[in-house]
């Protein structure tokens, strides 16, 4: 894991540092990003000459962790109508092939494949107050779909942010996680976590980058 020394990146979701209270019956975790135009490809982009024109497909993923920090239910394999078989279906991992948790308390609103548009590009909605007590922490991960194949990485992503918005649409917190050179070659990121603490929920920006573009690699730790 990682320790984040940046100040002000851990907040109480029920009450922020301004003392405002929030309605956590549902919280939207919104992710947004823009892709650098060509020329901003950095060392790797220039080296391979790739990835500058291709669209970026960033995916938001959530791991629901129990008190031991594990993803207890890894779901099942499922054959989609198009014949493709997907894994982790209806388990404690929320992602583009299993967008809704069976409890109905956490879901991904849709799969944005280009990062087009301002504001949130992908959203995960969590009914925090209804979430089963066995879930202690939710980890939010962003991965660049097939990033390694397309030579795409977080060093080429601009204006990446994660924010939390309460049930009334009030923004609780927003953190910028924009790429700098330390993100070169990094195809996924542990963006943030929401965790229970003293009867309330806390939200912490993490911004820990990983080289893999496949969240299944990260899932192995949980």
């Amino acid at each position, binding site marked *: *894991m*990682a*320790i*984040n*020394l*940046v*100040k002000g*990146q*851990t907040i109480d979701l029920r009450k922020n540092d301004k003392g405002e209270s929030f309605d956590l019956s549902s919280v939207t975790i919104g992710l947004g990003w823009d892709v650098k135009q060509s020329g901003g490809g950095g060392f790797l982009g220039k080296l391979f000459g790739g990835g500058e024109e291709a669209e970026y497909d960033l995916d938001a993923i959530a791991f629901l962790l129990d008190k031991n920090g594990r993803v207890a239910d890894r779901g099942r394999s499922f054959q989609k109508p198009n014949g493709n078989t997907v894994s982790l279906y209806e388990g404690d991992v929320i992602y583009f092939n299993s967008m809704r948790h069976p409890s109905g308390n956490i879901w991904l609103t849709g799969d944005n494949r280009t990062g087009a548009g301002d504001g949130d590009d992908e959203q995960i909605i969590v009914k925090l107050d209804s979430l089963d007590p066995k879930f202690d922490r939710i980890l939010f991960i962003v991965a660049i779909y097939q990033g390694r194949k397309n030579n795409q990485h977080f060093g080429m992503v601009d204006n990446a942010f994660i924010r939390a918005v309460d049930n009334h649409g009030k923004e609780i917190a927003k953190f910028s996680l924009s790429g700098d050179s330390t993100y070169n070659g990094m195809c996924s990121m542990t963006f943030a976590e929401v965790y229970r603490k003293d009867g309330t929920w806390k939200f*912490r920006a*993490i*911004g*820990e980058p990983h080289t893999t573009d496949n969240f299944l690699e990260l899932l192995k730790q949980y």
Partner: protein
Amino acid sequence: MAINLQKGQKIDLGLSKMTVGLGWNPNEGTGYDFDLDVSAIMIDENRFVPQDEFFVFYNNVDSPDSAVHHTGDDPSGGNSDGGDDESINVDLTRVDSKIQEILFVVTIHEAQPRRQNFGQVRDSYIRIIDELTGSEVCKYELGEDFSIETAIEFGRLYRRGGAWKFEASGVGYKEDLAFFLSKYFKGQIIK
């Protein structure tokens, strides 16, 4: 009667519940607040933090064994005029058996961009207060020992023969909190 510690001095504490308090008064006119941070690094026999949460600081105020609690960040030294600005509560009876030593470090947040150092801070000290009686057990005044430094390991609690001792280490560096952490933590540090 409180002991005024000198650098390198070791004492037997003879108590288990204590508050480690830190106070400072900034000099006027440097243009920025002085944001000193106290942190506790809990290390095992290999001198490493066994898991993230054993590093107790402004973003993680409780150790997993509930032995160490940081009472909160004071970003300006304004919490108290003359008293403790930041403090860490320690209950030695609850410290995880893996932990052999607890290092207390003080760092100046954003020292480099703000061009600040301990030479610009007055009356800074670390002290230990007996939580049961509220009396001061010992005090170590950092004042004259440091000038250009921005990070100080000022004390450590360590196990010795089944008891805990305290040493006023007083070792300064021109570094930041990440530097201290990297000496005792193998994971990634985001700054």
